[in-house]
């Protein structure tokens, strides 16, 4: 049987901040969900099912919070699914929701992802107790810094590339009213003068810890026809996972990431990603992951990704804009970060991205990853519906 085409007709996000003390967990998810419904000009009664995602429950200290959030999300009498695939979860959650529409189980689905990191300390939440992990791996940065170093060694990239990424993303964030960090006085010199946190990752090249939520309304052909604003059409979506650690694992360019991208491109008929894709919103929690993912996703040959960054190709006015929203480096409510990437891709092809709009964007890629560079979720959205 043929799948129902899936359209994004509503997008909403909360204002992101280090601590949203003005709202409860329910208030936070409701803020994003209500904005997505408003964007789609739909009411709570129009939603048939809710798919919610977030990263570890320890971050808020609530086990399976979707049970408590059912009321706030207008879910009584409806199906609720709760996805958790580590850092990629925001993306996976959107894909699970899209699948419910594609399978024609539901006409219109609300998908939400959130994290309220001010409720706990995410760095220690991610530092596993002995004996599960060696005692020196404090936080995600401690885990990923050696992989960045491996990339630098392998590619011969100059030390300055990471700072270029951080500077670009933080400046893009100034155009995004929802972004957590708005560093109006940022300069490249300031980025490079920041203290070294996990060598070679500086404090200025690291994602913040945010409270925030993102929501989207997904629907099929009929729902898209009724939508008040142009929809974004799902042209390809995939998830791939591989083990955390094993002999021969390539942390710099994990095969699961390459396979996931290849699957998405196959579905969407993309043969040359650099040429065919107009904008990319990728999961870059530490600056150096921009050149690393450019290679992993097929936008550059192996060892060449940093050259795109250095040449300004990935700038907002470049040939292949990357992280127009300011990215994870400017806003990181972990469980929502993947969905924010997917949502930004959709905003771009809908022409709704405001000051960070890439003019004429027709196809955009949203990318998320998580765990030990092992969980990948991606979607490719377009301004035109899929041909099949």
């Amino acid at each position: 049987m043929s799948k129902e085409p899936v359209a994004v007709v509503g997008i909403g996000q909360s204002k992101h901040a280090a601590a949203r003390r003005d709202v409860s967990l329910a208030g936070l998810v409701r803020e994003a969900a209500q904005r997505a419904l408003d964007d789609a000009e739909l009411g709570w009664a129009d939603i048939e099912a809710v798919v919610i995602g977030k990263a570890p429950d320890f971050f808020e200290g609530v086990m399976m919070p979707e049970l408590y959030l059912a009321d706030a999300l207008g879910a009584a009498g409806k199906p609720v699914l709760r996805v958790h695939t580590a850092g990629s979860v925001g993306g996976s959650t959107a894909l699970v929701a899209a699948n419910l529409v594609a399978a024609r189980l539901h006409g219109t689905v609300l998908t939400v992802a959130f994290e309220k990191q001010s409720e706990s300390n995410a760095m220690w939440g991610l530092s596993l107790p002995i004996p599960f992990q060696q005692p020196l791996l404090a936080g995600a940065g401690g885990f990923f810094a050696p992989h960045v170093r491996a990339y630098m060694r392998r590619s011969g990239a100059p030390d300055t590339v990471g700072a270029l990424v951080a500077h670009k993303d933080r400046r893009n964030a100034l155009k995004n009213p929802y972004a957590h960090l708005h560093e109006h006085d940022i300069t490249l010199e300031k980025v490079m003068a920041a203290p070294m946190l996990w060598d070679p990752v500086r404090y200025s090249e690291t994602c913040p810890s945010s409270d925030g939520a993102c929501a989207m309304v997904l629907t099929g052909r009929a729902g898209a026809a009724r939508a008040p604003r142009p929809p974004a059409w799902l042209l390809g979506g995939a998830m791939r996972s591989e083990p955390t650690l094993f002999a021969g694992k390539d942390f710099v360019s994990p095969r699961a990431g390459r396979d996931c991208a290849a699957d998405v491109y196959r579905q969407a008929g993309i043969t040359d990603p650099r040429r065919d894709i107009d904008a990319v919103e990728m999961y870059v929690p530490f600056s150096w992951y921009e050149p690393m993912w450019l290679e992993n996703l097929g936008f550059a040959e192996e060892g060449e990704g940093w050259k795109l960054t250095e040449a300004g190709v990935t700038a907002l006015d470049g040939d292949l804009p990357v992280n127009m929203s300011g990215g994870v480096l400017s806003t990181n409510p972990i469980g929502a970060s993947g969905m924010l990437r997917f949502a930004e891709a959709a905003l771009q092809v809908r022409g709704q991205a405001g000051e960070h709009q890439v003019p004429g964007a027709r196809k955009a890629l949203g990318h998320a990853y998580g765990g030990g560079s092992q969980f990948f979720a991606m979607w490719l959205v377009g301004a035109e519906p899929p041909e099949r």
Partner: protein
Amino acid sequence: MTRQIAVVAFAQSDHRRTTDELSEVEMLMPVLHEVLARTGLRTADIDFTCSGSSDYLAGRAFSFTMTLDGVGAWPPVSESHVEMDGAFALYEAWSRLLTGEADTALVYAYGKSSPGPLRDVLTRQLDPYYLAPLWPDSVALAALQAQALLDAGDTDEHALAAIGARSRADATANPHAQLAGPVPRGDHLVRPLRTGDCPPIGDGAAAVILAAGDRARELCARPAWIRGLDHRIEPHSLGARDLTDSPSARLAAERAGAFERPVDTAELHAPFSSQEVVLRKALRLGDEVCVNPSGGALAANPVMAAGLIRIGEAAARVHRGASDRALAHATSGPCLQQNLVAVLEGDPR
């Protein structure tokens, strides 16, 4: 025409009070091997994998990454995880097979309740602002529900005791059960619930393989076709709900087509004897229906896997010809807040 998807294999661990000597991976691995062996499939033959588990039980973040190692996810696999009972992972996998993007799926779930005080741990599921600070535990909340049933005249303590006795007697035929045979009613744990009305606390794992259409027929002599599958949630606050009823279970059953024709078997995820009373009423199950021939959750209740086990047990009965049309149910949240219903059928014999 909707694609037909079936449960083609099921395996589970022996459920035990403690498994101190086993990690989650070690508990799960034999189950994965067994379920794959039943179909002759290897990990690389599986199109989609989905699991259900809880970080709060494991006591660490991203605990499912450990068990993914057990799957052997190399080359990389198309995979997802829900922080829910494995029955909901099965739902996700089923929806994926429906689109035609996958023909086979591996679904697994596991939970180790033994490392922590489960009654305390489950209080963390409650509204974090108004309820959780009071630490109302899962048995106390179930007791409120049981008392509401008694007050409504829907049951009495003897009827509840009979449910416990029947479940443990039936469990004598289930080699995986944790609690089987004559079990005393015991003292009140939280009035009106006695120890015999409550599930054993234990560790366990389960796995199921789904397959579509002809692939299912290749892999299983008598596939358990999923004729309907649906799940619904209710408001969280117990004060907003009629605890003697389960409108979400009834609606899920209706949407799954359970009421279109009678079922011969029902595997209900009713951890407390009183919850079987609620579910029998909501799901319109008469005395002619064989309820929980496996012993149900009163015989083994590994949290996060117990719902998937209901689907697996129902499917296994269809596989071996002991049932032609079975209902399987899974629940989550305090006092049956969220409910899933599957209707499984075998081909006519």
